[in-house]
Structure formats: structure tokens, C-alpha cells
């Protein structure tokens, strides 16, 4: 059905929900590139005003990508929980925004309606929210996941240690990994992006992390971010796979350009579960997403990049992941032009993910052709810290020498823990304290130096033994 709103003498008409969502979306270059963005500031506000009056129920009756032609639409509609939706079924999108912000709505209430919210509802309400609202509501959500430690508890904040190397050199990876561990990084996962998808290389990297983890008895999990088919192959050959990784998008067509579909993810999910390697929990999946990937694969069906990103979260939540992160600034300036757009997109992704029940992290990052710098990343880091983001990346000096982009450093995470009083995952924190690597109690670092002094030969031996 069509929607409209009149401003002065112009009656703005929007042909369908998909168009209305696109026109109501805050400005970003990717939507301009797709030719679906509002033509003026006034048209955008007209669309937002019209959207505020749309009943949430409308999203169940009008799909933005046809049910018949897209398995993610089918997943969203078929898994929608009518009973959970009951509490909000009379609300419009605008009323939903006010309701989310109201004092009566806390984590318990949000959990009770989680399965009744579709990605499109989450995306729609986010378009009517200021950055402050996105932070305030996300902050209410507590999404806790477990494998060998507990991630996402209130007052805690974790990091993925990302020790990438341009040629997958094991000694090089180990050096970055040890550096990161001694800065207290790695409680979300020690996760390597391999430079090649060769199963032999991936296996060696997996064995490396596994060896270090076992030798130092670190309560964390490992992951090599290879294609899901490579991981499946490795699982079947008995490799030490803790978490199964995959990049996902919000349309069937986009996922097919990634070489995946829901059946394949299900197969890999079951295979990873069957290894039973988690000691305290069974969250075994790690997904990455990011606005713009659907357009970049020419698989967006005319849907705006923020809404179609939220649809990827429907895929993620089906498999009860340990970690999900939006690699927000990696895509480049033709999708998110500058610090302002990257920051807005990150807050939207974090909010939508959390509202849909996902353990959201964010790769706070930018490329050198984007109009962004470390100051923008510091702003975003602080905002996401306040919003209760589950985890960020930890990369030596912010500089990923394999993927050639800038993300957050080990030091950045310590800054956030210090200014906001956050602590690592409890099991990991206990390990840090035991090793004398206790950055959360920042008054005394001498123990750390004692630890390194006492272990330096062991650490170097570890590397030379590789």
C-alpha cells in the first residue's frame, strides 16, 4: 500500500513500505548510489513522519522483499512469534520509539518481546531515533553468551584479539597474539582473518591458537575466519574448531554471492555443536555483517542499506551466535562517506542487533579513502562503550597490516575500561589477575612486568618453536 504526508503544499507519496523506509533513512552515500535516498531534507522528514504513523502490524502484512523469492523473508515471517508480539501489536512505529524509551521498559520486558520484533520493525524505529535514543535503548539490553567464558554481562566489555599477518606467518601471528594477551585483549575470541582460504593454512593457524590457549590455560575461544565450507571441511577432518565463522547478508541473493545459504549455515552450526568444545556454553557461531554489502553484491532489491543490514540479524539469531559484529567502516566511502555516517551506522547496527537479541560487537574502523580518522573512532568507541556494546576488535596499534584498514587498538580497549569502569569477561579477568596482567586495577603494573620477565624466555621459546 502507499503512504503519504503533506508538508505545506507538497503531498509526499511513497509507493510502498520499502520506499518509505529508504526515504526515511538518515542520509548516507550508499543509498544515494543505489538511487533510493530522499531527494531533499524535507522529503526525508515527511517520510519519517509518515513512517511514525505506520502500525507495526503493517510489517507482517507487507514484506519488503517477496516471501516467494527470498528465503530470509520466509525465515523472518515463519519464525515471527505472535505471542511475544502481543505486547506491542497495537503500536505504531512512532509509539514504539516512545515505548522503548519509557522507564517501564527494561531488559526483562525487551527480552519478552524480542521474538515478536522483525528486522524491518527494528530498522524502521531506528530511523526515527536520534543517536542518543539508539544508545539509551541499546543500553537497556543485556545479551549474554557463553562458550569458555561469559560475554555481555552488564559492566563488562570484551575484545576480539585480531593478530592478522599478510602472509599468515605463524611467528608473526604469535607475536601479535602475545602482545595482545599481555594488554588483556582476547576475551571475546582470538580470531584471525587468514590471508588465504587454504584449509592447510587455516588448520595451522587454528593449531597455533589452540596450543597457546592450552599452554597458558586461557579461558577464551579461537576462530580462524575462513569461509564456512572450509571450516566444515576442517571440522570433518578433526581440526580444533571452537567457533564457526561466516560473513552474512540480509538477502538470499547476497548470501548466494557469499557462497552460502541457510541450509549450509545450519549444517555448519550442527557440525560445530557436535564437537562440544565449549566448557560453559553452547554458543558456537561468529557472524560478521556490515551495511552496504548487499548493494555491493547488487543484491539489495532496492531496499535501503540499513534495513537490509538488519535483515542479516534474522539470519544470525537463528543460530544463537556467541558473537556478531558489524564491520561498519570497512566498506568504503561510497557507502558510508565520513565519520558522521560511520558513527550513525554503527549505533543503528548495535541498536537493531541488541533489540533482536544478538550479542552485538562493532568493528570500529575506517579505510584511508574515507573522510575519517582516529578522532572519529575515539568518538564512536566512547559512544559504543556507553551503549553497552559487547565487544570490539583489538589490533596492534590500530593498524591491520593484512586487511589494510584501521580498527581499535589493545590500548583503546584499556582506555574504555578505565573511563567507564568496565571489566573483561569474568573468567578471563580471573586469568589475567592470576597472571599479573591486571589492567582494570590500574594502580599497579609492576606485576605485569614481573610476569613478562619471568615468562619472556617461555614466550620467545614458544615463538621459536613454531
Amino acid at each position, binding site marked *: 500500500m502507499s503512504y503519504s504526508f503533506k508538508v505545506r503544499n507538497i503531498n509526499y507519496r511513497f509507493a510502498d513500505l520499502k520506499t518509505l523506509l529508504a526515504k526515511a533513512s538518515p542520509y548516507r552515500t550508499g543509498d544515494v548510489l543505489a538511487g533510493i535516498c530522499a531527494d531533499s531534507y524535507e522529503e526525508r522528514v515527511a517520510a519519517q513522519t509518515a513512517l511514525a504513523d505506520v502500525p507495526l502490524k503493517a510489517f507482517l502484512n507487507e514484506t519488503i522483499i517477496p516471501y516467494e523469492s527470498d528465503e530470509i523473508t520466509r525465515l523472518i515471517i515463519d519464525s515471527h512469534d505472535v505471542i511475544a508480539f502481543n505486547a506491542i501489536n497495537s503500536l505504531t512505529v512512532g509509539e514504539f520509539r516512545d515505548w522503548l524509551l519509557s522507564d517501564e521498559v527494561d531488559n526483562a520486558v525487551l527480552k519478552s518481546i524480542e521474538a515478536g520484533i522483525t528486522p524491518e520493525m527494528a530498522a524502521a524505529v531506528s530511523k526515527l531515533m536520534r543517536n542518543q535514543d539508539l544508545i539509551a535503548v541499546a543500553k537497556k539490553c543485556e545479551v549474554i553468551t557463553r562458550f569458555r567464558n561469559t560475554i555481555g554481562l552488564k559492566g563488562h566489555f570484551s575484545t576480539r584479539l585480531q593478530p592478522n599477518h599478510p602472509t599468515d606467518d605463524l611467528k608473526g601471528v604469535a*607475536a601479535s597474539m602475545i*602482545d595482545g594477551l599481555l594488554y588483556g585483549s582476547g576475551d571475546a575470541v582470538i580470531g584471525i582473518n587468514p590471508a588465504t582460504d587454504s584449509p592447510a593454512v587455516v588448520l595451522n593457524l587454528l593449531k597455533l591458537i589452540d596450543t597457546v590457549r592450552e599452554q597458558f590455560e586461557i579461558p577464551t575461544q579461537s576462530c580462524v575466519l575462513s569461509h564456512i565450507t572450509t571450516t566444515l571441511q576442517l571440522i570433518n577432518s578433526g581440526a580444533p574448531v571452537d567457533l564457526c565463522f561466516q560473513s552474512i547478508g540480509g538477502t538470499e541473493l547476497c548470501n548466494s554471492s557469499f557462497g552460502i545459504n541457510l541450509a549450509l549455515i545450519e549444517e555448519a552450526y550442527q557440525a560445530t555443536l557436535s564437537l562440544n568444545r565449549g566448557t560453559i556454553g553452547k554458543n558456537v557461531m561468529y557472524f560478521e555483517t556490515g551495511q552496504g554489502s548487499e548493494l555491493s553484491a547488487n543484491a539489495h532489491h532496492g531496499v535501503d542499506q540499513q534495513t537490509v543490514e538488519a535483515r542479516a540479524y534474522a539470519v544470525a539469531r537463528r543460530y544463537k551466535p556467541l558473537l556478531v559484529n558489524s564491520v561498519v567502516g570497512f566498506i568504503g566511502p*561510497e557507502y558510508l562517506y565520513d565519520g558522521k555516517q560511520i558513527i550513525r551506522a554503527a549505533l543503528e547496527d548495535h541498536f537493531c542487533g541488541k533489540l533482536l537479541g544478538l550479542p552485538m560487537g562493532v568493528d570500529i574502523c575506517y*579505510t584511508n579513502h574515507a573522510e575519517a580518522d582516529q578522532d572519529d573512532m575515539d568518538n564512536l568507541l566512547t559512544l559504543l562503550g556507553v551503549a553497552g556494546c559487547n565487544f570490539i576488535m583489538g589490533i596492534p*596499534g590500530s593498524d591491520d597490516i593484512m586487511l589494510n584498514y584501521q580498527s581499535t587498538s589493545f590500548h583503546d580497549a584499556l582506555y574504555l575500561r578505565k573511563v567507564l569502569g568496565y571489566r573483561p569477561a569474568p573468567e578471563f579477568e580471573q586469568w589475567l589477575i592470576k597472571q599479573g596482567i591486571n589492567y582494570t586495577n590500574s594502580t599497579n603494573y609492576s606485576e605485569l*612486568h614481573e610476569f613478562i620477565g619471568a615468562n619472556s624466555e617461555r614466550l620467545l621459546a614458544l615463538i621459536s618453536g613454531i
Partner: protein
Amino acid sequence: MKIVVSDPLTPLKEFTAARIAIGRAGTSIPMKETLQFKLAHAHARDAVYSVLDVEGLVSSLKTLNLPLLHLQSKALSRHKYLKRPDHGRQLDEASEQQLKDYNHGYDIAIVIADGLSAEAVNENAFDLLKILVPKLQSAKLKIAPLCLVEQGRVAVGDDIGFGLNAKLSLILIGERPGLSAADSMGAYLTFGPKPGLTDESRNCISNIRPQGLKAKPAADKIFYLIMEAFKRKLSGVGLKDDLAIGALGH
């Protein structure tokens, strides 16, 4: 009292170029490392906004004795270029018109475009071509007029190859600058170039610069791939360059 805590892991630095063992001030990155990082980012940013040195390139390229065309993509400014990759992939109308005078049929069209680092081609394109062009000529391949393109993306090479009626296109283009190198040039070749092709139809040789893949081995590798492409009448995923690596022994 020492304000900056030096890093006991310094010996690990020999294993990786990553910024490890950088010490800390409180829990923050020390001044020295912060400034080094800023400088690397400044180099990368300046490279993105660097401009094709048309005069310099024309004067060095004329020693190759080939006609030279100066073209422009549909992206009229750097800001437009960054926001609209589709514009950077197409020539503007005046440039398309220019090609029409030269569509006599060639074996190879060679294109030089600024891409995301004009600096990279300003510094590396001629050094590569002065080795590669004579090799192509001695292999009796007919080379089209050299094309200099401002605000160009990789795919513009295919449009030009098509417009010049060439059997193969080769584009030398500035790669997205990283913190470790802002002057890295890439070379992409397409057999049977035409508008609308994507990466899977091309072969890429990356990181061409004095501190990376030097001009001589880069030219050898490109020449090898070009000859293989002509022999097998294809390029892209079907044409692996591991043969080239084996044949050249590096």
C-alpha cells in the same frame, strides 16, 4: 620517574611489521608512536588527494614513441569519484569521442589512471612501461595509443580497450593507500575487454613499487600473463598466475 613504559616485548618486533610492543603512557599509546601513526595516515590521505602528473608523465612517456591520449572519467572531482564508483568506471563524452579517431584495431590498449593514489602511478608507471613496452613490441604486438585517465577506476580500462577495438586491455592504477605504503600501483589485464565486466574477468598484479614488487619482475610477470592470455584467449579466474611465479622463480 619514567612516564612512558617501554615494552618488554620489543624482541618480538622482528617477527612482524604489526605495531606491537609500542609501550604505553598510562594505558594509552605513547606520543612517539601516535605521531608515527598520524604521519602514515597523512601520507595515505595525501595520496588519495594527489593529482595525476600529466605533464611529467607525458614528457617521460614520449620516449616510448607512442601516441598519447589524455582522457577523463565521468567523475568530475575527487569527492564525486569517492562517492560514485560507477562514474569513475566510465569515460566522459569528450573522451569517448577522442577514442573514435583511433579505433583501428590493436592487440593491446595500455591505460594509466590515478585510481586511489595518483602518486603511485606518477612514480611507478613509466619505470614499468619502459621495460614492458619494448618486450611487447619485440613480441610483435600492436600497441594502441597510451591513455592517461583522470579520476579513473579499474573498469575504465575495459571501456577504453573496447573503444579502441583492442584485443586486450592493461590498466596501471594507484591502489588504495595503506598505512605501510601510499605509493602502491596495481596492474589489471583483461582479454576481450568490454563494458560491464567485473573482477573475475581480470588478472591483477598488485603492490608494484620500489619497496614492493619492483618494476623489472612486475614487467616480466605482466608480460608472461599477457602472452598466456593471448595463447589461451582468456583472462581472469581461468588464467592463474602461479605458472608465472614458477616460470620466473620467485
